[in-house]
Every structure is written in C-alpha cells, then in structure tokens.
C-alpha cells in the first residue's frame, strides 16, 4: 500500500538462527524500522530450522506485516516463503544471503566466496611457501560456511599451491575450533597461519587458546602466527589494534541493516529498482532474475582499523557483542 | 481313570537335556504321559521342573533330545502358532498384561476376528462366557490392573484351559490361590480330564499332587528320579523322593501367650487404620518369643498390615509400637531402627536385587552399620554375610554370587537373611515359604524357631492353611478387620474362620 502512513504500516524481520552476528542484524534492523517511523511486529527466530523460517514468514504476513527483511537461512529452502509473500504482495528484502529464486525487491549482501578469496589473498601474501595454514571451517550445512571454505580453498590451491591447508571441522563451535587448533599445532610444526571464518564466533576463545600455548605473538615478532578472519567484529577490531590479528574481511553489517531497511521502505512505496551504480559505492547487478546490491567487503588491517564507518566500531555493535573499545 | 497302555503317549519327552551356562538344568530326562492323565511333576527348587515345561511349550528348545505329541515330532521352534495349537501353559512367572482389559488378557495371542482384524464384540462375549464358567465376578472390559492378584492367576488358568488344546501345563498354579479357588481349579481339571485332556501339574503341595494326579515324576538336580503311574504314586514316596534321606519335621510352636500377659509386648498395634486403605482398627500384641499367625482370604488386608508394620505403608490413625515405643509409620528405616525385620510377600518384586551379590542383598538394610563413617569395607560385608549364609544354610554358600543365579528357595533364604541381618526384635514374615520346596521349608521354619527361642516376636502372615497351623495363635482377617482369634486351632477351624462360616 503505497499510500498508507508509515505509522500504520507494520514491518518485521525474520532471523534464521542464533549467533551474535545474526542477533545484531535482527536488533539493528528492527531499530532502523522504528527510526524510519514504521510500526513493527516482533521479529522471529527459526533456530536453524528452514521449515520453521517458512512458517515464521507466513505467520508474520498473516499477522499483517506489509514488508519483511529476512536474513536467509537456506537459499533454496526459503523459496516457498518468498513465493507466499509474492502471492500476498508483500515485498521482501533479503540480507546476507540470496534466495535461490522467487521475487525479491532487493538482495543486500556481500559475496561469501569473495570474502574467502580476499582472506586467501591476505593470507597468501603473509605466509611462506612450504608452510601450513589452519582453516577453521564453518558448518558446511550453512551456505556462508560452505562458501567461505570453498572461496578460500580454491583460491589457495590456485595461487599458493605450496601452502598446505589443515582443515578443522568446527560446526561453528568455539570449543571444536580451539581443540582443532591445538591438534594441528601438535601435528605440524610449520603452521604459519590461521584462517578464521568467523571472528564473531571464535573470538575470544581461540586467542586465549593460542595464548595458553604460548603461540600468541604479536605481528612482526618471531613466532607470530598469521591470523586472517572474516566478520571484523568488535573483538576482531581489538585484536587488530593489539597486533594479534593481521587482517579481517569485514562483513558490511551496518550496510546490510541500513540499506536493507531502506530498500524495503522504498519498495513498499512502490519504487522499482534498476541495475547500475548506487550512491554508496556499490553496484546493483541482476542475478538469477533478482537484483543484488553487492556491498563491498573492506579488508580491515592496522591501517584502517579506526575507521568509524566500519560496523565493528559502531556503538550498537559494541553493545550487541558486549565488547568495549 | 487309567488309560489303556496301548495308546500313544500324549507327551513323550525323549532324553532331553538343557544347559544354562554352567547349570545343567535338565540331563537326559525321558518321561511319557498318556492321554487323559494328570501328571504330577515334583522336585525341589531348581530341580528343573519349569525348564522341562518350557521345552514342552516350545518357548525354548532342548540342547539335545526331542519332544513328541501323540507320536508326532514337535513343530519347529519358530512356528509359535503350531505349538499353541498343541499346548497351553500357565507359567510360574505371572504372564499377564496389566495394561490391557481382562477380555484381551484372555485372548492375547488368539484374538478373535477375520484375518488381521479383531472383533471386539466376539471377544467381549467370549470373555463373558469364560468368566461366567469360572464364576469370576469381573467386568471383562475393565483393566486387568484393577483385578485382584489372585483373580489374575485364575484368569491365566482360565485362559489356558479355554485354549482348547489337548495338553495343558500348570506350573505351580495354586501358589497365589485361596482354598475355594483351588477347588474350582481342580473341578475344572477333572472335568476336562473326562474329555481326554492331558495335564502336567507342578506343585510343592504334595496333598494337591496326590489329590488330582494319576501319575507323577520326580526331578532332582535336573535328572529324572522316577516316573510312576496310578496307585504307585503315594504321598510317602513323594516325601521320600523330595527329602532324599532327610527327616521331615512337624512344626508347631506352642503359644507364648501365657507369658505374654506379664511381659511387655515386643510389638503392639493399637487401632491401626490405613488411610483409605486396606485395613481398619487392627489391634493385637505379640510378646517376645511369641509367634502370631495371620490368615484371611485374598484382599482381606492381611498383607497390608504386615507392610504397615515394616514401614511400607502409612497409617491414617492408630499406632504401631515396638517395645512400648510408637514407631513413625510409612518409613522403613524407622521400623528397622525400632527392631523390625521384614520378609515381603513377593520376593521377586520387593525381595532382592537380582544382579547384586548375595552379600550385598543380605546387608542392604544394615549399610549404616557397616559404614558408620560413610565408607564401608567389603571385607566386613563379606564376613557378615558369611555368618548369615550359615544361619540360613544357603546353597551354594558363596557371598559373591549374584542372587539371580540362585534357585527360588535359596532366593527366599537370602530375603530372610536380609530380615535377620539387623538382629530384629520383631520379625514380620509374609508367606515366607511360598514356592519353596519342603526341605527349604523345613530350614526356614527352623530359623523361625531359633528366632523365637532368642526372644524375637514373630508375625507370620500367610495364605496357606498349613503354614498358619504352625502357630498356636492365629488371627483371621476379613474385609480389613480382625474377625477372629483362634487358639490351638485345627485345620478345619482355620478354614471355617477364613471363609466366615463360624
């Protein structure tokens, strides 16, 4: 309804599972809706169950939501929910991950495979040939885990074939990550780097594990293990400042939230979007029939760690992660 | 009643052997039973009677040897239906479904109906017919869990006899039954025998065997001692065969009532009433060294009185006193501390922990003494149990053996030893010799006598008139109240009082 007043228009958010990152996206989006003057329906959380996310979205629509931002848990399994929303003429904006099909007003995301590749570049230029790198693989059941693994592995194999990869299955469990690191360090004496697929999940546990093993050595000193991570959460920012983390590929979380909500509001007002450059330095592309605003994923290093625009430095992120600067 | 010897035997057991681990339960046993006979199978606890029956029902297969019915080889083990058409059995262990209705219990394994579908109507009608035939006053639609224990036993018997098989096996069917029910059973057995049905009847009650059996076999330690037919089966022979040289004693404990008046009672019940429960206004006293027996029909509340003294039931009003002190009811520990030792009615359910050792079972109630500071020494535990093992003459006398490996009679001795472990001042014994062979029975009575001599007050609660006769002072309960007190009763006195025919 393009004519309805914002205050009478209810928006909501569907979260696929619980982790600090997803929680922050949920909280941030709901706040953004309110800031834009819209009414909200409490958000839902599907707890890792794709079927539940379908039901959640249907329930939110039945309950009167006029537009939804969703963080997609499973690109394929979400499709029936999108189709339901299409039938009911409720616009959907997807953030973080693209649904495989269905009509989406806009997909706001970064490319996880690309993040893996960026991490590979950062890693590759810092470790010597003949050394080994631990990769903390996210749960392959989740597409971001899968993509970050594949992006990194394929790039390493192509560009740095002489670096041995030691894969650790973490299922996003910090305890498994810590054990995996310790096992690998026992097994190989040439570990030169650690690729951490989610610093939001694995910090502070693995920093502490390295510390207790006497392997937490600052950048530039003898015995330093190169660390490259994905997310660039507040804790990663601290680690970069402290000189333990070499580089973090930032998930542009604030952008997900802000642009996600903005696109939704514009779609409700009836706006149609087009391919091409945006006003925030990204390009909207058409992929599988839907428009994708592929946000840039800046690499954070010591050089740009103080940039206030990085989400890991924002107040809401510090709060959501219970971290302080 | 004897059948011409020319007929083929209904059951022919041919050189059957069965071994469980180290136990040779049956060794080379051969028995032939002619059609229309009621064949008594007797022997001490663990002699192999139940095992032999399991071979005849097809529930288990012999290691060697064979079973034939009417000259034909037994069906293959897997073909349960074929076995069912030939043999029906009342097993020693209760085999009922408390979660199902009485009707379904009567027809489990042979539900009436077409093909796979069940006809509840037919089943109901048939069940009503059976219940009427057996004069069992129950609604076939009610759950079996609502039926009293002894009626459940009658139902399993009724089921077996209704199966229409030419062969029926009864493994100690009368243990749970009272007099009139036993009579009903015997009438029915004889009626079916007229029609040519063959029975095998296992019992430790020799009077029952001589009353209805026209042939008999005696098993001892898994071997067949002898098998005889007709007039050759005499009570004396059976006793002789069972005791194997030991002499049988007659027990009768003279009343200590004379002394009871001037000594303070070791146990006293004052208007004891269970809240919403099984007995009302029960009062009696037992002096140290005195034996009081309590009898009554099933459901009269006699067991519940015993359980209340032992602390397993809570009183609504009235009190239980030991040595003049009121015991808090409903707490086993409190009763034990007041000096009460207890042998429960059902040893399988309340008596022992099967996989634990003899030593542990015997000392289970005295751990606070073995381990005053928390930790106990297994050596002390073994020593204590060795004394108890000697006291009750356990066979084998090994404290480390798991109780599950003992014969029924010896399991009962373990339960008795557990009751004695605390040097009780009062012993409450419920059916202490149920399912126990005569030699073991003797041993148990001897123990009771010794306890009495040591000044222990004993309450003996039993369904078995013979057992009640051991005491010269017998209380009879009816509908939860003490209906009569008999001094020096005869068997007839007791039966009349139990049945309420004063």
């Amino acid at each position: 309804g393009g004519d309805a007043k914002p205050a009478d228009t209810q928006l909501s958010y569907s979260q696929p599972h619980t982790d600090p990152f997803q929680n922050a996206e949920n909280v941030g989006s709901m706040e953004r809706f309110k800031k834009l003057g819209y009414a909200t329906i409490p958000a839902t959380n599907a707890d890792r169950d794709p079927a539940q996310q379908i039901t959640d979205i249907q329930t939110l629509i039945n309950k009167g939501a006029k537009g939804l931002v969703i963080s997609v848990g499973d690109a394929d399994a979400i499709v029936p929910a999108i189709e339901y929303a299409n039938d009911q003429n409720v616009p959907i904006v997807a953030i973080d991950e693209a649904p495989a099909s269905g009509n989406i007003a806009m997909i706001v995301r970064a490319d996880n495979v690309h993040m893996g590749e960026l991490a590979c570049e950062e890693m590759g230029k810092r470790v010597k040939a003949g050394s080994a790198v631990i990769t903390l693989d996210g749960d392959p059941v989740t597409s971001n885990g899968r993509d970050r693994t594949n992006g990194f592995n394929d790039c390493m194999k192509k560009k740095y074939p002489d670096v041995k990869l030691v894969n650790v299955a973490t299922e996003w469990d910090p305890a498994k990550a810590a054990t995996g690191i310790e096992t690998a360090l026992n097994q190989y004496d040439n570990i030169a780097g650690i690729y951490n697929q989610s610093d939001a999940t694995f910090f502070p546990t693995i920093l502490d594990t390295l510390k207790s093993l006497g392997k937490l050595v600052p950048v530039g000193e003898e015995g330093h293990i190169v660390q490259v991570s994905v997310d660039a959460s507040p804790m990663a920012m601290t680690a970069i400042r402290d000189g333990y983390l070499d580089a973090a590929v930032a998930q542009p979380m604030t952008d997900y939230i802000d642009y996600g909500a903005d696109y939704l509001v514009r779609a409700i007002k009836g706006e149609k979007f087009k391919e091409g450059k945006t006003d925030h330095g990204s390009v909207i592309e058409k992929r599988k029939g839907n428009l994708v605003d592929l946000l840039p994923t800046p690499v954070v290093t010591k050089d740009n760690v103080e940039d206030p625009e990085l989400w890991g430095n924002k107040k809401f992120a510090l709060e959501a992660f219970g971290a302080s600067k | 009643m004897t059948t011409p010897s020319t007929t083929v035997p209904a059951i022919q057991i041919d050189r059957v052997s069965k071994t469980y681990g180290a136990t040779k339960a049956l060794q080379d046993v051969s028995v032939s039973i002619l059609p229309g006979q009621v064949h008594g199978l007797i022997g001490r606890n663990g002699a192999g009677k139940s095992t032999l029956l399991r071979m005849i029902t097809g529930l288990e297969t012999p290691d060697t040897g064979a079973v034939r019915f009417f000259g034909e080889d037994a069906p293959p083990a897997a073909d349960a239906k074929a076995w069912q058409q030939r043999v029906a059995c009342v097993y020693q262990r209760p085999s009922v479904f408390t979660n199902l209705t009485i009707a379904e219990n009567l027809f489990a394994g042979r539900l009436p109906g077409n093909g796979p579908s069940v006809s509840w109507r037919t089943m109901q009608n048939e069940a009503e017919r059976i219940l009427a035939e057996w004069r069992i006053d129950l609604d076939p639609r009610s759950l079996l869990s609502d039926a009293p224990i002894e009626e459940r036993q009658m139902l399993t018997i009724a089921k077996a006899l209704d199966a229409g098989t030419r062969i029926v096996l009864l493994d100690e069917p009368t243990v749970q039954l009272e007099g009139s029910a036993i009579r009903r059973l015997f009438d029915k057995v004889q009626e079916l025998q007229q029609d040519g049905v063959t029975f095998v009847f296992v019992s430790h009650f020799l009077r029952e065997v001589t009353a209805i059996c026209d042939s008999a076999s005696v098993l001892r330690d898994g071997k067949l001692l002898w098998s005889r037919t007709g007039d050759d089966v005499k009570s004396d022979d059976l006793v002789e065969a069972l005791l194997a040289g030991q002499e049988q004693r007659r027990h009768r404990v003279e009343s200590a009532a004379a002394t009871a008046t001037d000594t303070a009672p070791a146990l006293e019940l004052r208007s004891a009433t269970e809240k919403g429960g099984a007995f009302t206004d029960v009062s009696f006293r037992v002096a140290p060294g005195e034996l009081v027996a309590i009898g009554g029909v099933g459901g009269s509340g006699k067991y519940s009185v015993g359980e209340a003294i032992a602390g397993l039931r809570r009183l609504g009003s009235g009190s239980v006193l030991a040595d003049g002190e009121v015991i808090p009811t409903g707490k086993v520990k409190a009763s034990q501390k007041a000096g009460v030792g207890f042998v429960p009615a059902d040893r399988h359910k309340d008596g022992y922990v099967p996989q634990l050792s003899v030593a542990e079972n015997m000392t289970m109630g005295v751990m606070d003494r073995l381990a005053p500071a928390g930790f106990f020494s297994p050596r002390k535990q073994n020593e204590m149990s060795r004394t108890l093992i000697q006291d009750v003459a356990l066979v084998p006398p090994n404290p480390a053996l798991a109780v599950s490996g003992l014969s029924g009679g010896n399991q009962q001795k373990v339960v008795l030893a557990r009751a004695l472990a605390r040097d009780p001042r009062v012993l409450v014994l419920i059916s202490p010799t149920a399912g126990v062979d005569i030699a073991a029975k003797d041993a148990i009575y001897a123990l009771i006598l010794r306890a009495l001599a040591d000044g222990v007050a004993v309450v003996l609660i039993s369904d078995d008139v013979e057992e009640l006769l051991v005491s010269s002072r017998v209380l009879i309960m009816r509908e939860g109240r003490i209906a009569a007190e008999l001094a020096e009763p005869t068997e007839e006195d007791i039966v009349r009082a139990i049945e309420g025919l004063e």
Partner: protein
Amino acid sequence: MNSARTTVITVPSGRSPFLGSVVRNVRELSVLPGLIIVAVIGAIVSPAFLTAPNLTLILRQSAELGIVVIGLTFILLTGKLDISLESTVGLAPMVAAWLLIPAAMGGLGTMINPFVAILLTLVIGALIGLFNGLLVVKVKLDPFIVSLAMLILLRGITLGVSQGKTLAGLPDAFRYIGSARWFGVPAAIWVTGILFVIAALVLRYTAWGRALYAIGGNADAARAAGIRVDAVLITTFIVASTLASFAGLMLAGRLASVTSGMGQNLIFSALAAAVIGGVQLTGGQGRIVGALLGVLLLGTLTNVLTLAGVPTFWINAVYGGVILLALFVGRFGARPSRT
C-alpha cells in the same frame, strides 16, 4: 468381599463401556485444557489467529511432525524407542534427490524417474527401520543408544552425500505431496489426517496393533502367549522409519528442496507430543488420538508464541516451560490409581 471389589461388580454392565472408555480417555484428554488455553490466548493476542489461513498454516506445519509421531507412537507402545527417525526424515529424501537431480545442481546426475525416487525414499526408510529393528531385536542393543548412534551415523551420511549442500530443483512430481492443494487445503493435511485415522484403526482393530500393546505391557508374556514378538517389533521399526521417510518427502515438497539439516531436533518435538498426549515411554499405554492432540498443542503453541511476539530470545524458554506445564497437568489430570 471387600468394598473395592464390590464396586467393580455393581457397575451395571450396560453403563460400564461408556464409563470405561471415558476413564481410559482421561489421560489423552488431559491435553485438551492446555490446547484450549493456548488457543484462547492465541485468539486474544492476535485477531490473525482464528483465520482460515492461520489455522491451515498450523496444520500444515504440523503435518510432518504428525507423521513422525504416528510411527514413534507405534514404537513407544512396544516400549522401545527410535530417535534416529529424525535423521531418516533427512537422509531418505536426500539420497533420492541426489539420484534425481542433475549433477550441475549437486546431484549425482543419474536423474532417475521422480516416481522411482519417491519409491526409493520409502524403501530407504524401510531399510533403515529394518536395520534398527534387527539391532534392537536380534543383537539386543538398547534401543535408545543404538538409535542415538544411528542418528549420528545417518546425519553424517546425509552430510557426506550432499556435501552440505541443499539440493533444489526437485521435479514437481517429487514435490507433489508436500506442495499440492486438494479442495483448497494442502494435500499434506489431508494425507496426515488420513494416516492418523488409519493408525487409530490399526491400533484398535488389528492383531498387529493389539500386539504392540501386549508387547509393551509384558514382552515375556506376549511371547508366551504366542505373539511373534520379534517379527512384530521389526515390522514396527520398519513402519515407523518408512513413515519418517514419507514425512521427509513431504517436508522436501514444502521446502522445495532437500536441506542437509532436515529433520534436525524433530524427534524431541515428536517425543514431547507423544508423551504430552499420554503415550508412556515405558510401553503399552497411550492412544493415537492423544498423540494427535499433543502434535496440535505443540503446533498451536509455536504459532501463538510467534503471533504473541514473545521476544525471540525468550521464545524457547516459554516453549519449554509450557511443555513442562503440560506434563504436569497430564500427570495430575489423570493420576493412575497405583504407580
């Protein structure tokens, strides 16, 4: 003759069937108050609750759970357990889909006929059930622990086969049962309803159904009564697993894809539904109508919690609390006379 016994006898036989069935129903019906309360709350918190689309949604989202619960109830009645049912929900359609879809989409590329794939789903379910049944009945392993090991193994195989990917691009025929509508209502709801009716009839009116109760009540006695306990148990495991694989097929239809996490945690809901509905884990007691009410309670509860906008972080706590409460009510609503 004591008073207790007299009571039983004096009930006129004409009345007792009705009374008897009410008494037998109490345990199952003890879910009803809970269900009604949750529904009333739902109607209060949101006008959307009592609308046709919402009620349809509740039923549709409960369909897979319901089908798993039918099989689970069969198994629980025998006194056994199979927690690997949830992994069968995932594995059976995953293998079928893997053989069904093009290699480019993550399949093996054999691209078998969709109807063969449906059949295969059910056959895989049946085989898993057979394997579980044999382990429990013949190898005599504890059903809980063996199905736990199977759960890990089957989930692992699902992950290995799919390489963690979600398999999409399923042909319509394969998706049909999970996505079609009959007379405006999802086919899955019709099918689930029919399966519940069949299950109730089987339990009540077939020898096999009655055997489940007998075995759960007293397996030794059942054996002694000539019931082929082993055969019945194995068929029960097979039936339950086949139903689970069918639920998986339906779920795949609903998700328009097969995810490698499909069915995860479903068994917990299924157990909760069955037990809240009066099915005893110790075997021999419970009825399918109770299990159905349990399923509906959980489905309605999830729906109402969402409608009520319970904060996402507290939703699980509320859910757990309500289940606990329902168990409580069930316990006191129908306290058995003796324990």
